[in-house]
């Protein structure tokens, strides 16, 4: 049965958590001596497809939980373009060609442009450790590498007509087996309100665990909004449009009563399938972690929604 076949790392390939965490000291030491971040690659054997990245430590709310093992975060994925089971993306995503890759940015902007992935990678990058909460009531803690989305937005100068941002993911039937069946209305689309998109926590993500993104995690570029359910974090983005109307997202089309536009993590707003009061911090067996409003980022983002009925705007 395909649903149980998780790519199984050899025991020798599993990074002990403390080694991963110590890697940070490694980098700090390496930087101090001018050796540079090539040391990142030596702290752990880089997987074939990913490349080490150069970045600084970013400012993000500090989490009490340690990062999820990389091997788990890269083998348990919701990425329907590569199959609907959690293990399939890691099996199937190597067919995605991420070089060359460009992101077209347009819509209500003064300077529309097409930007190559190499130009994004050349920008100043930082690492942010965010909690990632899936609508399916599980969560992980992931060290992402990238930049605030607002940095990219400032390059194209959105006009006053820009009220929302729409993200469009790649949909390539030849490279993405899931796209050949109409599980979702391809291409995958997501969106944010302008103030959400420009919030400093909204992260244009190019890497994780110190390296470029593995394909199954949305290479080469995705968006991460840590206070929203994971499906808001569109993967493998090819188009970004600044628009005047609220975009209709792929999951809203699939089931508007279950997946709203805002999709803010909220234990008080129930979902038809999953109770959102608790979550399973993977790989825990028990769903014993109490879900926090806005996924714990309330101090940063609550003001975005003042006066809004969060149950109606779920």
């Amino acid at each position, binding site marked *: 049965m395909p649903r149980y076949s998780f790519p199984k790392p050899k025991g020798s390939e599993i990074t002990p958590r403390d080694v991963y965490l110590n890697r940070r000291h490694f980098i700090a030491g390496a930087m101090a001596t001018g050796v540079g971040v090539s040391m990142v690659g030596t702290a752990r054997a880089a997987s074939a497809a990913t490349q080490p990245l150069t970045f600084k430590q970013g400012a993000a709310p500090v989490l009490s939980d340690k990062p999820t093992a990389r091997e788990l975060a890269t083998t348990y994925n919701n990425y329907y373009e590569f199959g609907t089971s*959690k293990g399939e993306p890691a099996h199937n995503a190597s067919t995605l060609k991420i070089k060359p890759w460009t992101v077209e940015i347009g819509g209500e902007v003064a300077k529309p442009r097409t930007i190559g992935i190499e130009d994004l990678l050349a920008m100043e990058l930082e690492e942010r450790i965010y909690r990632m909460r899936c609508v399916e009531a599980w969560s992980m803690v992931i060290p992402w590498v990238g930049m605030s989305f607002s940095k990219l937005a400032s390059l194209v100068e959105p006009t006053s007509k820009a009220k929302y941002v729409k993200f469009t993911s790649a949909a390539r039937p030849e490279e993405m087996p899931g796209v050949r069946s109409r599980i979702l209305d391809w291409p995958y689309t997501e969106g944010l309100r302008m103030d959400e998109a420009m919030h400093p926590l909204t992260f244009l993500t190019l890497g994780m665990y110190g390296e470029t993104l593995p394909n199954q995690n949305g290479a080469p570029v995705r968006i991460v909004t840590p206070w929203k359910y994971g499906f808001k974090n569109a993967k493998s983005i090819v188009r970004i449009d600044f628009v005047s109307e609220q975009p209709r997202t792929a999951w809203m089309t699939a089931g508007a009563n279950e997946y709203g536009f805002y999709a803010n993590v909220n234990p008080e707003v129930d979902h038809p399938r999953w109770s959102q009061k608790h979550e399973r911090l993977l790989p825990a067996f028990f769903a014993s972690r109490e879900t926090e409003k806005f996924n714990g980022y309330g101090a940063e983002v609550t003001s975005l929604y003042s006066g809004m009925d969060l149950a109606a705007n779920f």
Partner: protein
Amino acid sequence: MSYALPKSWIAPLKAIVFALSLVPLARIIYAILFDTISLGANPAETILHMSGDGVIYFLLITLAITPLRKLTGWNDLIKFRRMMGLYAFFYACVHFLSYIGFDRLFDLSDMAREIVKRPFILVGFAAFVLLVPLAVTSTRGWVLRLGGARWSALHKAVYPIAILGIVHYWWLVKRDITWPVLFALVLAVLLAYRGFKRGGRKIRAAS
């Protein structure tokens, strides 16, 4: 057109089938103890899926025994039906316990609220509850106590149970209904065979 295995083969064959039916459980226990990574990042969910699939497989096997026996004439198959039915119940227990343990943290009032609130859990729970009397009355003693006709009327409950089980699966998947559809097709064939047989008998009786 009927044939039978030598009588002395039945007991060893039963032992083999019994052991093979424990393989899913053995996989789960082995993985929990020695190899959690093989259960993936969400081991509790994998266990829920494995045990849930176990229920559907054993229900379908149980329901396939009579048609297979009639089509092949191999009457010994009936001797395995109770075991298959009890394994369906056994994996339903594993599934149910995993759910109330891993998902609901043994909080029974929370579980009750969830059952009432979510239709897919309600139908799954209904299927489980309906399985209990069938498991209890599966012994020879209960067949005698109830009498053959009443016993088999009671055990016809396995048909709605199987339907509820597959509805439970169908309603819980988010988008990709491939597997529930396949299971539903197999169940439809098995149930249609019975309807067809009964219709055939009626026609013969009338003529």
